[in-house]
C-alpha cells in the first residue's frame, strides 16, 4: 500500500482533521483533490447520520444500489431527409439496472474514397471486390454485414495522398448517399488546412441528411466545420486527445458557434488495447460521470475510433508464435471497442465484420431491463462442459 492509500485509510476513520503550526502565503490558490479523497471527505461528513442508523443493527434485505443522477446525456439524431434516423445517447443513468437505457450502441463501418492498399488482410478479404467504389463498399457493409451507419473517410483529399478536390469529395459523398439509406459519418483526410474546406463541400452535397462531420478539433478551423453543420443540418464530431479539459473547451467553443448539445458527438480518443487503452478508460469514464453529474459541457454522446486497434502490432504483425492475425486482429478490435463501450461510448467506428457482430451482440443487451432475459440453467456447468 502506498502513501496515498495509507492516507485514505486513516481518513476513513477520522471525523476531523486538525493542522497545527501551519502558514501559507499565496496570491491565487487552486486545490485539486484526488476523487477518492473527495469522496472520503464526503463520507466523513455523512458519518454522524450513519452512526445514528447503526445503533439498530437490523438485517437489511438486498436492495439494488441505484444512484440519483442530476444530469443526463443529450440524445443526438443522425440521419434525416432520405436517411432512416439513428439515435445516440439519451442516458439518464450509468447502468441499465438503474434506469432503462434508451438507445443501444451503434456501429458505423469504415469505408474509404480510395482502395486503401494498407488495410490489413483480414479486412481486405471481406471487401476486396468493392474497394474501388465507395458506394459499392458501403452497400456491402450494410447489406451483408448489417451496418447501422457508414463512415466515409475522404482520405483521397489529403494533399499527400491524391489531393482530390472538395468537388470530387462531394461527388464521392453523393455516390455513397445514393448507394445506401443509412446515416453517414463524413471524415476528412486529417489535413488541418484542407479538412474544413472538404467537410464544407461534403456537407453541402449532403444537405438535410444530418450526417456527422468528423471532425472539429482545436488544430483546425472548427468554426468553418460548425458553420457547415448549421447551414446544411448536420452534427459535428468534437475530437479531443485524451484530455477532458480540452474536450470541455472545444465543446464550449462549438456551442458558442451556435451548435447545441443535440448537434455534437464527442470523440475523447480511443487508444488501442495495449497502447494506452487505460488512458481512454479513465477519460471516458470521467466524461460520462461528469455528464450525469450535470456538466453541461460534457453531456453529449461519445464516439470511439475503434479502428485504431488495427494499428497495434499484435493485431496485424505476422508472427507464428502469436497465432494467426485472422483471429488476433478481430479480437483486438472487439476488446478495444468493448472496453470503450463499458465506459459509456455510444457509437463505434469499426472495420471487421465479425468484430462488429460481437460488439453488437453485447451492446444490444444494454437496452433490456435487469432480469428480463431468459437465461439458461448453468447450475451444472462443471459437469456439462466438455
Amino acid at each position, binding site marked *: 500500500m502506498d502513501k496515498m492509500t495509507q492516507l485514505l485509510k486513516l481518513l476513513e476513520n477520522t471525523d476531523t482533521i486538525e493542522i497545527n503550526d501551519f502558514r501559507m502565503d499565496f496570491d491565487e490558490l487552486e486545490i485539486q483533490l484526488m476523487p477518492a479523497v473527495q469522496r472520503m471527505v464526503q463520507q466523513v461528513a455523512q458519518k454522524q447520520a450513519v452512526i445514528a442508523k447503526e445503533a439498530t443493527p437490523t438485517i437489511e434485505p438486498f436492495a439494488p444500489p441505484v444512484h440519483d443522477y442530476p444530469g443526463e446525456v443529450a440524445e443526438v439524431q443522425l440521419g434525416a431527409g432520405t436517411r432512416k434516423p439513428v439515435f445516440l445517447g439519451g442516458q439518464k443513468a450509468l447502468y441499465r439496472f438503474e434506469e432503462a437505457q434508451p438507445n443501444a450502441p451503434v456501429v458505423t463501418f469504415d469505408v474509404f474514397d480510395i482502395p486503401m492498399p494498407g488495410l490489413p488482410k483480414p479486412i481486405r478479404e471481406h471487401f476486396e471486390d468493392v474497394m474501388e467504389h465507395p458506394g459499392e463498399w458501403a452497400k456491402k457493409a450494410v447489406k451483408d454485414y448489417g451496418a447501422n451507419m457508414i463512415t466515409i473517410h475522404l482520405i483521397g483529399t489529403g494533399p499527400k495522398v491524391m489531393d482530390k478536390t472538395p468537388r470530387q469529395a462531394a461527388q464521392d459523398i453523393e455516390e455513397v448517399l445514393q448507394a445506401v439509406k443509412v446515416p453517414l459519418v463524413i471524415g476528412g483526410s486529417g489535413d488541418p488546412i484542407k479538412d474544413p474546406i472538404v467537410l464544407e463541400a461534403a456537407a453541402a452535397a449532403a444537405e438535410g441528411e444530418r450526417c456527422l462531420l468528423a471532425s472539429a478539433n482545436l488544430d483546425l478551423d472548427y468554426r468553418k466545420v460548425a458553420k457547415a453543420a448549421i447551414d446544411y443540418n448536420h452534427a459535428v464530431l468534437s475530437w479531443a486527445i485524451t484530455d477532458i479539459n480540452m474536450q470541455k473547451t472545444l465543446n464550449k467553443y462549438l456551442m458558442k458557434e451556435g451548435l447545441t448539445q443535440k448537434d455534437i458527438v464527442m470523440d475523447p480518443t480511443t487508444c488501442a*488495447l495495449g497502447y494506452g487503452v487505460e488512458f481512454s478508460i479513465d477519460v471516458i469514464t470521467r466524461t460520462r*460521470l461528469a455528464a450525469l453529474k450535470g456538466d453541461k459541457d460534457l453531456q453529449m454522446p461519445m464516439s470511439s475510433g475503434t479502428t485504431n486497434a488495427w494499428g497495434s502490432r499484435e493485431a496485424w504483425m505476422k508472427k507464428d508464435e502469436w497465432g494467426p492475425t485472422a*483471429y488476433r486482429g478481430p479480437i483486438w478490435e472487439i476488446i478495444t471497442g*468493448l472496453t470503450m463501450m463499458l465506459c459509456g461510448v455510444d457509437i463505434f467506428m469499426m472495420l471487421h465484420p465479425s468484430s462488429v457482430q460481437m460488439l453488437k451482440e*453485447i451492446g444490444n443487451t444494454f437496452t433490456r431491463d435487469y432480469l428480463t432475459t431468459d437465461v439458461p440453467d448453468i447450475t451444472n456447468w*462443471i459437469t456439462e*462442459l466438455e
Partner: protein
Amino acid sequence: MAFATKLSDKETDLELCTQLAADEMEKLENLLAPAVREITIGKGEKAMILGGDEVLYRYELTYYNPTPLVIDVNDNMDEEALNERIKIIEATEFERTGEKLVLDGVAVRNVSGNKDKFAETALKLKSSKLPLVLCSLDPEAIKAALEKVGSEKPLLYAATENNIEDMASLAIEYDCPLTLFVPNDLEKMKELSRILRSKGIKDIVLDPGTYVDEGIGDTLDNFVMIRRLSIEEKDEDFRFPILGIPALTWLYEKDEVQGGIKEATIAATLMNKYADMLIIHGTNIWELIPVLTLRQSIFTDPRKPQMVDPGLYEFGELDENSPVLMTTNFALTYYTVEGDLKSGKANCYLLVLDTEGRAVDVSLAGGQQSGKSVADLIKESGIEDKVKTRTLIIPGLSAPLSGEIEDESGWEVLVGPRDSSAVSDFFIKLKEKENAK
C-alpha cells in the same frame, strides 16, 4: 512508527506484533482491510492473490491485484492429456513492455462424478507449479480431494443453496477459501453469504453466474451491483472478490475459432467490470494474448507515469562506428523498441529522450521533443565520446524535426522507420548503401 509504516505498506504482518490485545488486533485489522477482501489461494511460491480493491474506477486511485487467470482441466482426462494441458498452462507466456505475462492457476472439474477419480486428479496436480481450484458441487468429492491436497490451500468451488452446510464445514476444517455460487439471484446470495460469515468464514469468493449470450447483461449488472455494494455501501455480505467464468462459452459454442473469440470477449467484458478472477477454457495463444494485455493495461497504476530513465542505452557489440538511434522515454515506446532491437540482434546505441513519458507523436505535438531537447540529449549523454560518426537515426514519426535537430546539434539526421519492427531491415539497407560507396 517504522513498523506502522511497513504495516500499511503491506511489507510486514500484523501478527508479528506481540504487544497487541485481541480486540486491538481486530480493530487494526479492520482499519487496514480493503473494501474488497484480499484472498490468497495456494501457498508460498504457489499462490495467487485476488481482490483488495478500494475504488470503483481506476482513475480514482488504482486497481489492486491483477485478475488471476485460471485454466480448467477435468478428472476424465487421461494422464497424458492432463500432463499435456498442464504443460501448456505453465508454459504460456507473453512478453510485453518488459513484463512477462503468464497464467496463474488450474481449476479441476469433477466431471466423472466419481469422488476418488476427482481426488486422484487433484493429487496429480499437486506437483504442478500453480495453485488449485477444486470444482464440484458434491461435498463428498471435495472432501476426498481435500484429504489429498487440503494442505495446499486450494479454492473450493462451490457452496450453493443445496450444499452450503457441508461445504462450509469443509472450508473451516481445512482452512480453505470458499466460493459461493448463486446464479442471478443477489438476494439469495446475500442471505447465503451471511450464513457463511456467521460461521466465521472470512475468505469467500462470489460467483453470481456467468451468462455468455443474451444473459451477459444480467451478469454485468450483478457484478457491478456487488462491487458498488462493497465499495460504496460497505455491505459486509458483498465485500468479497468476484469470480467470472468465461469458460461457460464452450457450453454453447463448439467451434474452436468462434469459441476462442467469444471467450476472450467475455473475459474482457468481465475483467473490465470487476471480475477479480477468471476461469478460462481455451489455451490458444491468440485468444490469451489480448486478455493478458487487457489485464496489464487495466492494472497499471495511473498515479505512476509510465516511463523509463532517459539517457544512453547500449545493444549488442559496439564500436566507434556503431549506429545511433533515438526514441522517447514513454515506457510502451521504449520497451517496444528495445524488444525489436533485441530480437533483431541489433548492434547499436539508443538515445532515450526525456519526453515526460510521452510517445513519439504526442511529444512532437506537445513540444517535449524538439531540436533543442534532442541536441541537449546528444551533448549530455556523452555519445560524442563513444562514436566518431555524427549521424542520428530518428523515428519515422519524428521526420518533421530533422532539420531542426541538424541545426541545433550539428549532427546529420536520418529518418528511420515508423515502426521499430522495421529497424532490422533498415540496418541492412544502410549497410548495403555504405558498401556501395
